[in-house]
């Protein structure tokens, strides 16, 4: 393991990781790959909103959030790839659906704006807790990526909470749609806190997702109630994203995302 070249936390990017001589240990790479996939899949979904948002300010805001997440994905995938001599693009564009490890919440289609806000609220609170814990990781690269991400994700939480309130307390129609959005996304909450099969032997390095559940449960239901909405009660879906089990939404998404890169294998862009 060689961390001598790792960069300072505020400046860490996919490029700086690729340019350094850092090599992720195999187990750490396996863990980082799942985290990178989560961020990549959600970033891609947010990219679908650009030019389609309800107002220009939201084209900008959702674009910003998507760009932040894409930055996290690029750093995590680049770091994971150092273990196998693969680039972020090898991992993003040349793995098939069963090899993707993203949890199922992130691949859910954006639906209407309320569904997107519901997905984003759940995701942002989860990411905020995850990165806060991961910034204390004994793996310096993971810690640096997380420390940078946590500041950005705090803003994402604010953005979602403001919209949750506007839609929940706005008009009858927006209230109904916000509730429907929450109901649609809620079955995918449970999976976020299931044990990560790639985190088990990484004491002090990885974050055990079960540890994050308490913080989520003490915050999100209260936010939902404060916005005049009802905390959904539907059962958790089975999950399995980390072991390559996905909902029907991921396949078409990857087909689109990967189509050009796969038409020109070996090309650089």
């Amino acid at each position: 393991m060689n961390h001598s070249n790792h960069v300072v936390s505020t400046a860490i990017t996919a490029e700086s990781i690729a340019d350094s001589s850092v090599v992720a240990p195999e187990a750490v790479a396996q863990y980082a790959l799942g985290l990178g996939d989560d961020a990549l899949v959600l970033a891609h979904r947010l990219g679908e909103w650009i030019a389609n948002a309800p107002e220009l300010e939201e084209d900008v805001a959702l674009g910003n959030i998507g760009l932040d997440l894409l930055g996290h994905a690029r750093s995590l995938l680049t770091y994971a790839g150092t273990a196998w001599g693969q680039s972020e693009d090898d991992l993003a564009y040349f793995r098939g659906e069963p090899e993707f490890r993203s949890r199922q919440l992130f691949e859910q289609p954006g639906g209407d704006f309320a569904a997107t806000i519901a997905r984003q609220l759940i995701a942002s609170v989860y990411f905020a807790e995850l990165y806060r814990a991961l910034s204390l990781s004994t793996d310096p690269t993971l810690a640096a990526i997380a420390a940078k991400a946590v500041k950005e994700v705090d803003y994402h939480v604010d953005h979602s909470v403001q919209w949750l309130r506007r839609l929940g307390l706005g008009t009858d129609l927006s209230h109904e749609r916000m509730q429907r959005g929450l109901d649609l996304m809620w079955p995918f909450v449970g999976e976020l806190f299931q044990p990560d099969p790639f985190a088990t032997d990484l004491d002090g390095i990885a974050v055990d997702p079960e540890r994050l559940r308490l913080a989520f449960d003490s915050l999100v239901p209260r936010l939902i109630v404060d916005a005049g909405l009802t905390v959904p009660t539907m059962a958790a879906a089975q999950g399995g994203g980390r072991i390559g089990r996905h909902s029907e939404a991921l396949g078409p998404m990857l087909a689109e995302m990967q189509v050009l890169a796969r038409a020109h294998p070996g090309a650089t862009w």
Partner: protein
Amino acid sequence: MAAPAKTTVDDASSEGTADQRREFDRLIEADMRVEPRDWMPEAYRKTLIRQISQHAHSEIIGMQPEGNWITRAPSLKRKAILMAKVQDEAGHGLYLYSAAQTLGIDRETMFEQLITGAAKYSSIFNYTTPTWADMGSIGWLVDGAAICNQVPLCRASYGPYGRAMTRICKEESFHQRQGFEILLELMRGTDAQKAMAQESVNRWYAPALMMFGPPDEDSPNSQRSMAWKIKRFSNDDLRQRFVDMLVPQAEVLGITLPDPDLKWNEERGHYDFGPLNWDEFYEVLSGRGQANAVRVARRKQAHENGAWVREASRVYADREAAERETTQRMAS
């Protein structure tokens, strides 16, 4: 929003008083900025509203041909750059709508004019983007032409417009460089990539040259805009400047510009270039481009799909404001 061209004198006609007219002429003459509080001739105000809102619409419609490739960008780096670029264009639209609002028109009205087809936008965005190389061509040629057009606008006589343009131009020059890089990467790549780049430049080159508008002799409005210092160079001057800038860059790329008449003219100190097909330009302008209907329909759909969100936002903000007021009244 109230019209800011306040007329405080008895003569409330749009012609203004002799003093007002003299003061306006003095500002223009002295190359000073006209600000929203200043009196301005009605025709000047209308010209600016038309130009700034058209420009804003172009930024917004321009998000579509590039937005087309965000989900298929071939590398994560390019995906990030493209997302940031399209997002910048939304920001440009926002600055420009704000500048137009200072002239007494609201955003909703301008949006309405766009989606009903009453207002124009740059017809370059009615061309389609069938290949990834089009992301390079748009950046290099379309943003490139936009910069040539827009750098002089940073000194436009109307203050809010000039200031918006200063911010915008900084970002547009990034866009042009990124477009150039996309093409450079393709031209250094496989045969298929090179062919993709050349084919795309073949499609975008002439339309980009036409972005400067019709030849000077066919462009009556631009004379007046130049006198008012809204516009500083003629269409043909700007077009020449653009061609002179492109040729050496095309050489670096190893791309052929699709014009057999393109050659250096020692005497003029400029490149000569062949005639442009203005019939096609007017075809596209009058609605028979590849994507005119689709672009406007798509904007309309996004606007309509978002109506319930904007309404909720408004109701929520009003209620919050009312509650704040009640709390304050009870406290005092």
